[in-house]
């Protein structure tokens, strides 16, 4: 992974001290409320229902064991002993005290971590494929490009006051696991053997109040021009994005108002001017960055011992089930990628306690080169585990309730913290996720339902990416009660689509029953081996609507989306 050099450390130390000064000036009454709000947001600090919430950046979801241990210490020292991993590969702490945040950040800076630009109208954490560097379908490791973008966008003087937040995702694989079509800018390495890196560039994707799929703005962008081109897009957005209404301020609104062709023309002419004064990335810079991500510690004798895994699976059905659901093939024979599920029954999705963090940090050191990854689905991955170590690792994970074999199933749901913690949320999401877990606690039933993604957001800001769930749940509020709207048919990847609303919202008492009706209908209608999403694509919303609401349509009250 990327190792900080002296300038990296100096910058982080300066930024940590700068923010501490801003907090102190605010506490001393020397900084106006409106200004401090903007300054603290640019450093990941929200003022939430019960306490501040601090979002710590995990660049493209990559952590070292030492960093995960430091997060555990933060959870213990400044929080209530846990953290919440987010869909953007970051971690949030819900209970720090404002006065203690500068020290918390100083502690984190010792392990090269920070909260820079994890909120506010700036370029946010660059996200990527959790399987970067290890996936069998990878064209090129996207992480060097992520790190180049991270550095370039960190404290960029021109883009610190954008109309709204700006999210960039990068994938280097054939199958998009980074939802690049649903970001402000999405970058996908194009498969062209023998040539230098070329990106397909998507712009204007996003969820929230008005979900849009991104559009292609450049089919073949040379990697050397990546930063110049992103700069051109950001400059046009900074100058022309709407600032009169925060719900119309994302770049997706600008792109759709102008049309992709007009927007592209503007970007291209700005790009041409930029190229006159700025050369692109040199091959040397890119090569130096790539060197940080080359993994050379694989044991060449590992493939020869693969028989051990079959033997272990044969002697233990629980282990075999875990291997089938929570591990996936590595590009290096004899190794596996394993998922530590943060979706154990009763657990809040994405939450992990300090003990669990420390245990995983230890497992990573013992079995996976001391490296941990955070996935968009809010699970943690150990990406380089020898097949011969799987049985021992599984036993260790089980002790810490990190081995629930439910990856990719209904109960591997994505969920934001919801109204229990977030001042933006309209509805509680954790109660619903816990009810779903109770209702669908039978593993065989879960496996029978197969690949299915359930994503839930407590409000229209869509932190839980409900639009991209095969089944999406959106929390809404009416008459001071929590209600839940369902969407069906969303997907984040190559077959990306925005889910379609099924009908009127459900009360908290009704929502789980509604999901059960949908699933019963699917089981009745599916063709052999047909996934839920494919059945839905074949049949559309209408039959599912009838299955859920019946013929009576007794519910007349509807909600504005």
């Amino acid at each position: 992974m990327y190792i900080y050099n002296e300038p990296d450390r100096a910058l982080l130390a300066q930024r940590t001290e700068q923010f501490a000064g801003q907090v102190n000036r605010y506490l001393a009454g020397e900084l106006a409320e409106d200004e401090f709000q903007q300054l603290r947001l640019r450093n990941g600090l929200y003022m939430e229902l019960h306490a501040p919430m601090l979002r710590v950046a995990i660049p493209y979801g990559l952590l070292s064991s030492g960093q995960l241990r430091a997060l555990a210490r933060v959870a213990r020292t400044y929080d209530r002993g846990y953290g919440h991993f987010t869909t953007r590969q970051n971690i949030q702490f819900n209970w720090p005290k404002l006065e203690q945040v500068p020290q918390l950040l100083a502690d984190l800076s010792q392990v090269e971590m920070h909260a820079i630009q994890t909120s506010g109208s700036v370029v946010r954490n660059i996200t990527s494929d959790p399987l970067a560097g290890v996936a069998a379908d990878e064209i090129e490791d996207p992480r060097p490009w992520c790190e180049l973008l991270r550095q370039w966008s960190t404290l960029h003087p021109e883009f610190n006051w954008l109309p709204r937040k700006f999210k960039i995702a990068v994938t280097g694989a054939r199958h998009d696991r980074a939802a690049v079509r649903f970001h402000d800018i999405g970058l996908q390495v194009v498969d062209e053997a023998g040539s230098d890196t070329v990106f397909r560039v998507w712009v204007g994707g996003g969820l929230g109040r008005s979900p849009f799929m991104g559009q292609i703005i450049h089919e073949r962008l040379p990697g050397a021009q990546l930063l110049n081109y992103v700069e051109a897009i950001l400059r046009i957005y900074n100058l022309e994005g709407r600032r009169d209404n925060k719900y119309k301020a994302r770049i997706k609104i600008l792109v759709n108002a102008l049309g992709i062709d007009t927007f592209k023309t503007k970007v291209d002419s700005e790009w041409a001017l930029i190229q006159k004064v700025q050369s692109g990335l040199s091959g040397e810079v890119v090569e130096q960055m790539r060197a940080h991500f080359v993994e050379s510690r694989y044991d060449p004798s590992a493939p020869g011992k693969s028989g051990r895994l079959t033997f272990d699976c044969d002697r233990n059905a629980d282990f075999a089930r875990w291997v089938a659901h929570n591990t996936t093939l590595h590009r290096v024979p004899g190794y596996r990628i394993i998922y530590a599920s943060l979706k154990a029954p009763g657990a809040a999705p994405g939450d992990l306690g300090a003990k669990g963090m420390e245990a995983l940090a230890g497992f990573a050191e013992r079995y996976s080169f001391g490296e941990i990854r955070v996935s968009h689905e809010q699970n943690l991955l150990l990406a380089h585990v020898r097949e011969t170590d799987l049985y021992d690792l599984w036993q260790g994970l089980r002790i810490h309730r990190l081995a629930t074999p439910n990856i990719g199933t209904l109960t591997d749901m994505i969920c934001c913290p919801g109204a229990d913690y977030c001042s933006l949320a309209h509805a509680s999401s954790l109660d619903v996720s816990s009810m779903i877990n109770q209702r669908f606690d039978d593993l065989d039933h879960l496996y029978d339902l197969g690949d299915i993604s359930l994503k839930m957001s407590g409000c229209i800001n869509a932190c839980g990416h409900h639009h991209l769930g095969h089944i999406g749940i959106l929390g809404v509020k009416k008459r001071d009660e929590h209600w839940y709207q369902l969407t069906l048919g969303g997907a984040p990847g190559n077959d990306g689509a925005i889910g379609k609303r099924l009908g009127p919202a459900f009360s908290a008492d009704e929502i789980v029953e509604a999901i059960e009706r949908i699933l019963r209908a699917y089981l009745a209608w599916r063709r052999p081996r047909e996934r839920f999403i494919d059945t839905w694509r074949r049949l559309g919303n209408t039959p599912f609507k009838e299955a859920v609401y019946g013929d009576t349509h007794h519910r007349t009250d509807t909600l504005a989306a």
Partner: protein
Amino acid sequence: MAIPIIVQIRWRPDTDGPSSECSRIGQAVAPNKTWQSHRGCSDDGHLQLGATDRVEDLPSTPGTYRVIEIDFSVFNDGRGYSLARQLRTQYQYAGELRATGDIRIDQADMLARCGFDTLELPADTDMAQLETAINAITVHYQADVQLGSGSVS
């Protein structure tokens, strides 16, 4: 209301690291603003621009102006930063570039890095705090990643 002060930001000449060309010190040179700004070019070569103005629509080439002012109606509207970068890098504007309106001392550093060399600030601005703010961050990634980008000097 007290007359705003004009603060000039000088670029520190010494080098103490790979990005030291971006270090500056703050210095007040003109405590009294004596001319009345208005939109368009005044007799003494001043041009005032707002956030909605575009560099490509200027009545004359930027080089004909002695001072170009960019006004910030509200501090979290960042359009002026892009206008400044365009003027300095694409139009090679070499005259005085002044930020006016609602600007805060914590923004002085990034304003300077985008090419502003003078700031119009409230008369009661704490110069010590301003200097601290301007000198808070002296290491810049933009120069590390891509030489020349971000370091407008």
